[in-house]
Structures are given as C-alpha cells and as structure tokens.
C-alpha cells in the first residue's frame, strides 16, 4: 500500500488573458486513493491537472508529486487527456498509440523489446481492446477511443494517473469496466486523480474529492466534503442543481429504497 502524499500544491494560480482559470489552489492529496476532481464547466479542472503536471506553467505557485519536483518523478506520472484534445484522424493504429505509453519509459530511440510488447498487449487486454489492436484510430467509437487512451496510460506503468473525464461518452457497461479497472489499480497502490462530472456516481467512485470553482471549494474524504452546502458552493445556487443535490443526498441516506 502506498502511503504519504501524492500531490501537494502551493498557491497554484493560472491566469489566461487576465482572467484566472485557477486561483491560489493549496492542498495535499493522499497516495493510493481514487480522488475525484469536480466542478462546473470552465471551473479549471483541466487547467489544474495541466498545471500540476507542468504542461502549462503556473503564473504563481508550484506543485510537488510524491514530495518531489516534477522532473524527478516524470516516469512515475501518467496522463489521460480529454479525448477531444487530439486529432483522431491521425494515421496510426490502436497499437501505435498504446505503444506511445512505452516511450516515456524507454527513451525515444530504443526499439521496443519483447517485454514492452507484452506490456502493450496486456494493457489492451485490460481495457478489452485486444481485437482492435490493428484498427485505424479514426475508425473507433468514442468509448473505444477512451479505452485506447486508458491502455496507453496503463502501458506507462506509472504510480500516479491523472485522468481528464475518462467517462465522457462511454456507455454504462464500459463505465463500469473502467471504474473496476481503476479500483484494481488503486488496490495495487496506484493513485488516481480523476476529473468527473456525474454527481450521481461520485460518492461510489471516489474516496477523496477536490471541489473546484476557480478557487478551491473543499478537499478531503468524500464523506466530509460531499454535502448540500459544499455542492451549492461549487455549482452555484441554481434551482435545478440545488434540487438535484438534495434528491441525491436523500437517495444516499436511504440506500435501501434505491436498491
């Protein structure tokens, strides 16, 4: 079991065109847990992930991963970008994309060894995409594309995974398969930081949660931070959201009625 801190941020601030996307984010996250990052559209979830991984330079503040500078732990860090962030018409096969996960470990010149290849195959297997290995990536459905991105991350064999909305556009069965995969990774001691939108499933999926709305609203174990007050603070006081939250919390407190 992994113990200690996974991510630590200090006054992390990113400003686009004079408007802050994230403002003064200060938190410490535990290792070995599935941690949700939630907040409305444009609340800075993707920006937070990118700033922690050094993909964008923060205007103020810094982040540490496993108590070290990012450059010292690069090969332990993996990233699953938002699916729409790449051009799926790029001429490559599923296998080619998953193999990219190995480059991080191998360096950029060495040939892929037999071991690398078996890791790639294993990763495809885990997301149930073995049959599609030679398929051109432009001929995949949205859910399949998402699984290719997950397989690429798995192939990296990292210790901490940042995933930006891995459940968007996947059907219920795939979503369940993915969450089971994440849980088994967690059981192996991996840390998973997952941007998520669905309030209904949040309590089941995550052990910890970061509630974000440009500023940090709350961070902590789900049972402490997921309640009507904090969700109102995060999502604003619109009637629909409020009533949704209320009914959600009700469902939670009477699980028997639901099941």
């Amino acid at each position, binding site marked *: 079991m992994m113990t200690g801190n996974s991510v630590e941020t200090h006054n992390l601030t990113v400003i686009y065109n004079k408007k802050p996307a994230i403002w003064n984010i200060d938190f410490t996250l535990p290792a070995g847990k599935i941690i949700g990052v939630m907040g409305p559209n444009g609340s800075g979830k993707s920006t937070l992930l990118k700033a922690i991984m*050094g*993909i964008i330079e923060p205007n103020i503040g810094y982040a540490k991963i496993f108590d070290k500078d990012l450059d010292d732990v690069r090969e332990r860090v993996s*990233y699953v*970008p938002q699916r729409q962030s790449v051009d799926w018409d*790029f*001429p490559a096969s599923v296998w080619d994309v998953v193999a*990219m996960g190995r480059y991080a470990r191998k360096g*950029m*010149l060495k040939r892929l060894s037999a071991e690398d290849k078996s890791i790639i195959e294993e990763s495809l297997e885990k997301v149930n995409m073995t049959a599609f290995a030679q398929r051109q990536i432009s001929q995949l459905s949205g859910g399949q594309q998402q699984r290719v991105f997950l397989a*690429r991350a798995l192939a990296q064999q990292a210790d901490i995974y940042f995933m930006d909305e891995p459940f968007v556009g996947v059907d219920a069965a795939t979503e369940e398969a993915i969450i089971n995969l994440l849980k088994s990774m967690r059981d192996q001691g991996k840390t998973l930081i997952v941007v998520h939108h669905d309030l209904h499933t949040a309590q089941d999926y995550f052990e910890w949660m970061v509630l974000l709305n440009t500023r940090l609203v709350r961070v902590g174990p789900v049972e402490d931070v997921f309640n009507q007050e904090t969700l109102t603070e995060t999502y604003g006081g619109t009637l629909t959201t409020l009533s949704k939250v209320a009914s959600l919390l009700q469902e939670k407190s009477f699980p028997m009625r639901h099941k």
Partner: protein
Amino acid sequence: MNDIWIIITASLVAANAAILGSFLIMRRMAMVGDAISHAVLPGIVIAYFLTNSRASFPMLMGAAASGMIVTTFIQFFNKKVKLQNDASIGISYTFLFAVGIILISFFGSNVDLDQECVLYGEIAYVPIDTLFIGELNIGPRQFWILLTTLIIIVSAVIMAYRKLVLTTFDEAFASAIGINVVFWQYYLMAGVSLTTVVSFESVGAVLVIAFIAGPPATAYLLTHSFKRMIYLSILIGIVCSIIGYYTAVWLNGSIAGAISSVIGLVFAIVFAVDLFKRRQVSRQVTQTSN
C-alpha cells in the same frame, strides 16, 4: 544527361519536402512553406546590403535567418496570443514580406535586387551550374547542396522521430512525459526553413510549396500508417517529378509548372477514387443493413 540531373534535383527536393510536409499537414501547418517563401525577403535584402553582393551564400544565410524569425513569430502568435495556426501564419509572413518591401524602397529602388532572383530559381538551369574538383566535373552544384540537405533532414528526423510524432499527435501527453514541445516545434521548423530556402534556389518557391503540401496530402488518403505516409509521399513526389518533366519537354513548357500541375492532378485523382470508394462502401453498408 541533363534530363537525369533535372529529375534527380526535383526528386531530392521532393524527398525533403515529403518528409517535412507529412509532419506539417498533420499539424495543420502546410502553409508554413508558403509563409517562409515570402518571409525570407527581408533577410535577403539585409544580406545584400551588408555584403553588397549577390553571392548566394550570404543570401542563403539571410533567408535562413528570416525563416527562423517567421517561425518564432508563428509560434508566438499561436502559443502566447492564442491565435489559430493559419491566422498566425498569415500575419507573420505578410508582416515580414512587407518589411522586406519597405527595406527595398527605403534603400532605393535602383538596387539590382528583386525577389525573383532568389525566390524563383529555375530548375532548367540546374545542369549548367556544375562543380569541379580540379578538372573533374562532379555534377551540378544544386545536386550536392540538396543531397547534403537531404542527409541532414533524414538523420535529424530519424533521431527525433518518436518525439516529432508524439508532439504532432498529442502535445499534452508529450509534455506530460517530459518532452519539450516548443523545442521540437522549432526543430521541425528549422528543417522546414533549411529545406525551403535551399530548394528555392534550385526549383523555385512554387514547386517547393507544391511538394510540401501535395504528395503528403495524397499519401494521407492512401494509408493508415504515418511511416508509410512518409515513404509514399516521397515516392509520389518522385513519380510526379518524372511525369512532370517529360510533360514539360513534350509541351515545351515550364518544368516547375508541369511538375506542380501533375502533383495537383495526382491528388485530384486519388481524392476522387477515395471518395468513390467511400460511397460504394457506405452503399454496401446500407444495403446489407436493410
């Protein structure tokens, strides 16, 4: 013998352009070649005034320097000002081209310098300008320059292949695993500047631009593997050079013009066939699903 030299020269340019063009079109930056061809003007003018000669080496250096400057501008507008790629390219090169024109008019219009002398090299003259080792004629000067360039580009791309592919396909992931995305963008653009500038002198700007955009776009329609796309675009470029050359001879017309037209024609044919095949497939699918 002249035929052979011209075809070889065109093929060398085609190979260089195909390799870099494949990356450029996947990055939606195919027009960068066009941009560089205009943006080199101020560099050429400044080189001319500094050395007071039309010797080609200083001009080449001036052109290469402005090639890098336009690349920096494009990068700046794209990444810092957050403009679209095509808008960044458009603004950058028109600006530098304008600076070149202002420089010419500022220094006096009596100078014996026009854009054509550097920009529109004439491939038909390639065999005339030969190199000698002692008494021995070792072939056209352009051939040796282009061959050297090809060796540089091929080794540079082989060494950085995975990084170039990764930064082209998924910038954020590349950056997350510690690849310096901006550096590799410049690396690629340095290659493009070198190739375009060197090739202008031998085959002229229009043909270079046609080679950068045409064969890779054609190859893209024909294959699903990026590596094969590169090989295929080299092959298409060479075949177009051969057909284009003999067409020009046959029609007694411009060689660069003929090759460019063949490149366009080949793309059009492949595109039409591709479209036709897709229609057929989708018709079959609808028939079987009925």
